[in-house]
């Protein structure tokens, strides 16, 4: 289920290739020779070619990258088949150059067909990500049918057009609000549909993923969120109607907010993850999400701590550099001063904004992904995440600048880089890869998926 997390939720994000680790792994593979591997595959009917420990040692001493030791024993996943129950990493074989061509043709065809091709583009794009994700020598598959994706898109688009018609053309705000209300009422159901569609579209070794979650549970969760938010604003509402000491109210308000962020949000996150993962299945085998409340609270405290430290560092650097610029500005031509300072401030603010957005996104993604992986289990198997949140933050931040300065052309490279780092730092341990079974598949409806896609709702599945 984790590869879905990787491939789908990052659909619209800037993404990657982990430098050292991956390049050394790839290099090792090259050095030891894909040729040699292929040859040995043909020569011996036994397909369990393993890199010898000598090879690894030679390589490591020449490369001086001791931190990569544990990941290196996997050379080429076409040849290595593990059944011994040790953790092995997922492999990602997407290549920036190859993906660039697919990506650019997708955009061109989508524009030239005025958007109709976008459904095919989406399927080809997802197919590329899934098909290049390997576990134990076999790759994943994305099986959605483009035509059905198109139907979903048309329905969602018509709904949105209806809203625009009422709100912007006919100025009938009551009807426009009605459309919004219907959408909000349907939203929990749509999210469930989207989760279900994403899982049902994926398969591994011709066994499809499934989703058994009930719509009722999604409405229940939303109800809980509404109640919690109401409680959050309770002190403010009370103070409007009853005359109480304002100091007491603000103290109460502070306490509620603090509790909401430190306990409320983590537990809601946990409930949402449980709702998704505990109802997901690979064939007939159910996934389990086994995280305790205290561990999720601990995770969010860790994340808050990391974010605070990063913010402090950014803040200090900003103050130092901006005061430096201010000094330089004093010497320049007075007439130009206001214009230059406007320009500098705008650039500076955008720069800091992008740096922070990139870092926070990567860091949070890293922490949350590791947490999800570490607590997800399936019969006789479990996942593990070894993502370094700060490294992912760095990748995500640098990706943003690479994409901007290349006018978007490096987007495929950035996406491969991010995905590769995340996927190759996901590990799976399983006693028996052949144990899973299935009795058929169903396809799921596309409307929810396309609604979630269209309005860019992050469901993190």
């Amino acid at each position, binding site marked *: 289920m984790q590869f879905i997390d990787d491939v789908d939720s990052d659909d*619209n*994000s*800037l993404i990657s290739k982990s430098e050292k680790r991956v390049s050394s792994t790839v290099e090792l593979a090259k050095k030891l020779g894909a040729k040699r591997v292929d040859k040995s595959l043909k020569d011996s009917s036994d*397909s369990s070619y393993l890199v010898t420990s000598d090879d690894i040692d030679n390589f490591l001493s020449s490369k001086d990258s001791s931190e990569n030791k544990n990941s290196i024993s996997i050379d080429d996943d*076409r040849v290595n088949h593990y059944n011994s129950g040790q953790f092995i990493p997922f492999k990602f074989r*997407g*290549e920036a150059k*190859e*993906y*660039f*061509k*697919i990506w*650019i*043709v997708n*955009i*061109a*065809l*989508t*524009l*030239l067909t005025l958007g109709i091709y976008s459904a*095919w583009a989406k399927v*080809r794009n997802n*197919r*590329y990500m899934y*098909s*290049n994700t390997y576990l134990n020598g*076999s*790759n994943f*598959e994305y099986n959605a049918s483009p035509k059905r994706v198109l139907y979903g898109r048309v329905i969602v688009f018509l709904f949105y057009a209806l809203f625009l018609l009422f709100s*912007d*053309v*006919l*100025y*009938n705000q009551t009807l426009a609000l009605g459309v919004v209300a219907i959408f909000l009422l349907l939203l929990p159901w749509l999210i469930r549909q989207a989760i279900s569609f994403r899982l049902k579209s994926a398969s*591994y*070794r*011709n*066994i499809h993923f499934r989703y058994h979650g009930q719509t009722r549970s999604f409405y229940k969760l939303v109800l809980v969120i509404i109640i919690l938010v109401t409680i959050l604003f309770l002190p403010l509402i009370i103070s409007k109607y009853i005359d109480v000491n304002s100091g007491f109210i603000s103290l109460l308000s502070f306490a509620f907010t603090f509790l909401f962020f430190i306990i409320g949000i983590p537990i809601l996150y946990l409930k949402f993850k449980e709702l998704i993962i505990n109802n997901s299945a690979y*064939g007939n085998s159910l996934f389990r999400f086994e995280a305790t409340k205290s561990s999720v609270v601990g995770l969010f405290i860790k994340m808050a701590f990391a974010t605070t430290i990063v913010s402090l560092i950014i803040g200090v650097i900003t103050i130092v550099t901006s005061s430096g610029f201010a000094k330089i500005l004093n010497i320049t031509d007075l007439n130009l001063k*206001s*214009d230059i300072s*406007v*320009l500098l401030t705008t650039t500076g603010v*955008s720069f800091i*904004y*992008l740096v922070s*957005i990139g870092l926070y996104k990567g860091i949070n993604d890293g922490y949350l992904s590791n947490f999800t992986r570490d607590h997800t289990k399936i019969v006789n198997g479990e996942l593990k995440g070894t993502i370094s949140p700060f490294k992912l933050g760095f990748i995500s931040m640098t990706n*943003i600048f690479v*994409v*901007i300065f290349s006018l*978007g*052309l490096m*987007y495929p490279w950035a996406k491969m880089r991010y995905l590769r780092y995340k996927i190759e730092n996901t590990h799976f341990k399983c006693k028996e*890869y*052949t*144990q*899973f*079974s*299935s*009795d058929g598949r169903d396809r799921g409806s596309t409307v929810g998926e396309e609604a979630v896609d269209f309005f860019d709702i992050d469901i993190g599945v």
Partner: protein
Amino acid sequence: MTLEAKLYDGVSSQEHCVEIHFSDDKRVVIDEFNLNEPIESVKISSRLGNTPRVIEFSSGIRVKCEDNDTIDKILNRLEYKKGVVHKLESSWKFAISSLAAIVFFTIFMLTFGADYSADLLASKLPQNTLDSASKKALSQLDKGYLHKSNLSNERKVEIIKLFNKLTNGDKHYKLHFRSSPKMGPNAFMLPSGDTILLDELVFLDKDPNLYGTLGVLAHEKGHYIYKHGLKSLIKGTIATTLVSYLSGDVTFLATTIPTILITSKYSRENEREADIYAKSELKRLKISSKPLANIFKELNIYVKKRGSKSESSLISWVSSHPTTKSRIDYFNKD
């Protein structure tokens, strides 16, 4: 022809190494599993990069093979229909052509395409739809921004007389007097011909005959005649859709800045068009355009007093109005 492949039966996650055979009478055969089907009844996935090819039999059994080139050769020989997309996706020539097509299409859509579709839509939209929409917009404005006018009846009659001169008494145009401290000196004409004149603008007019006000009304009529409001709405929608699709994720930089630049350029052109129209209308009525120049001067002072954007060299090119100075010069030349 025989290929090595991996078979998954769809019932268990067991992997089987098999040999798949394509016979010359167009059948796909796997002996170990007693599979023997005509090529039309198996689904062979289109090639995508170098990802393993999936061959799905009607029973749901799937076979995967990594040797894309050999499969393509076989399929060619058996005259199996293949998609063209992979051909586009696999050559740099087509990748670069695609990039050129994207750039060309974007520029075309933002200029000629947007103009053409805006013209077309603006001319095709039925007048009564525009009328009812405008009435609703006016009533919305009345609820939020607009207040009763405080002009004396004499003033109003004076202005209505001028307005009738401008519109040749066409009943389609209707003048509404309002005031709005929030909006400041302004006047605008809705697509229905309903014209709203704010007191604050009349107060700025130092001309005894109120010809400055008349000039502004003529300018607004220019916007109305050329359907600028509608067109910029349509163009804005096209620009936003295009740019937000292309930018994908870098929403912050990509969607806001270019759309502002594009839409402000539209309205600058529109303002110029409306200015030219106003001048020709004033000429027709044999009225000098100098009072209009004066009212723009006053407007400029008003804006500066309010502390809005100054006319600094960097900011003015983003501004949605032609630089006030060139405008004033234009109306001062008779």
